[in-house]
């Protein structure tokens, strides 16, 4: 697999971690109870930590690309200014200086928190995917990605336990909690297919032994999700049209708002530190 493709593959994983981490961090100070406020914030920080490791690796790959390829990789002027000045980039540049079309996270993760049920359903769908994804990545031919997967998998195992527990509690709870989590599951369902649908980057990564086999994950994911949904006394949504595009930079309207908040300081006051 060429370096540019490996970079994109790493960026896909990193952007997933950053965007879900940011969304969950929006609960900080607003959690339904103090204990869950802390739990959500812990989990957000886990995702952010994973994003950091992956962005560091991505920056490392980017800095070794030939100048011509660097120019084609990310199109934001802020990032290309660094390339033109022949400067190396780092993890922060990747998080703060790319524009929306250069983000490769799946659409599911940029969807708004809306309420606790939507937040739980979104996390549950992703955590179930992430668990199988990182498990597969343990065997990656790329030793850095395999090492990041090994470290992350312990965290992800807990995330999945946490979101599964909550899905079951809400589903098997009161009439209102049942209805709300069922609505969230139904509404978010159309964003779940993208995670296990391979784009060109996924295909090249899998073929080279670096990436995970998304077809195998799809089966495992569906089995896990339907088992938990059954336990939660909820109804599994029917197979339907699945939205996609996030992995190739085509996003819903929500991503721009996340980036506006996330990137404002670095864009307005370049290189500021505090």
């Amino acid at each position, binding site marked *: 697999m060429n370096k540019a493709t490996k970079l994109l593959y790493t960026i896909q994983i990193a952007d997933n971690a950053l965007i879900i981490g940011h969304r969950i961090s929006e609960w900080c100070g607003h959690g339904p*109870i*103090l*204990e*869950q406020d*802390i*739990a959500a914030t*812990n989990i957000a920080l886990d995702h952010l930590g994973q994003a950091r490791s992956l962005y560091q690796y991505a920056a490392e790959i980017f800095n070794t690309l030939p100048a011509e390829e660097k120019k084609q990789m990310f199109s934001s002027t802020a990032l290309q200014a660094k390339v033109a000045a022949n400067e190396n980039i780092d993890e922060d540049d990747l998080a703060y200086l790319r524009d929306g079309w250069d983000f490769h996270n799946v659409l599911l993760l940029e969807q708004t928190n809306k309420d606790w049920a939507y937040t739980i359903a979104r996390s549950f769908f992703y955590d179930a995917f992430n668990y199988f994804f990182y498990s597969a990545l343990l065997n990656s031919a790329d030793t850095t990605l395999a090492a990041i997967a090994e470290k992350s998998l312990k965290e992800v195992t807990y995330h999945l*336990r*946490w979101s599964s*527990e909550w899905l079951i*509690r809400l589903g098997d709870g009161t009439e209102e909690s049942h209805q709300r989590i069922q609505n969230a599951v139904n509404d978010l369902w159309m964003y779940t297919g993208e995670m296990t649908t391979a784009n060109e980057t996924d295909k090249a990564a899998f073929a080279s032994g670096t990436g995970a086999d998304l077809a195998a994950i799809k089966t495992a994911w569906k089995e896990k999700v339907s088992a938990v949904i059954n336990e939660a006394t909820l109804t599994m949504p029917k197979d339907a049209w699945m939205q996609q595009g996030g992995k190739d930079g085509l996003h819903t309207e929500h991503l721009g708002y996340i980036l506006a908040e996330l990137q404002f300081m670095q864009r307005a006051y370049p290189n500021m530190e505090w």
Partner: protein
Amino acid sequence: MQTTNKNEWPLWEVFIRSKAGLDHKHAGSIHAADAQMAIENARDVYTRRMEGVSIWVVESKYIHASEPDQSEALFEPANDKIYRHPTFYDLPDELKHM
């Protein structure tokens, strides 16, 4: 904010063992709907800085405490019973960890 208590989750006392071989020590309390949630909440609130390797939780209502106004009768009689400390024995030199 809800002002009534009837919809609140019960309170649980949390005990954390900081490393294998040591006792579980009282760490504080948390709210949770049941034992499993209590353990998970305790994990998130009390072990995020590597404080523990094991957690016990018990619903606070099951903790029975001594009466503070009986503390004279309960505890003060021990004050002048220094012979209950094993300080009047000559320990053999080989005994290192007493």
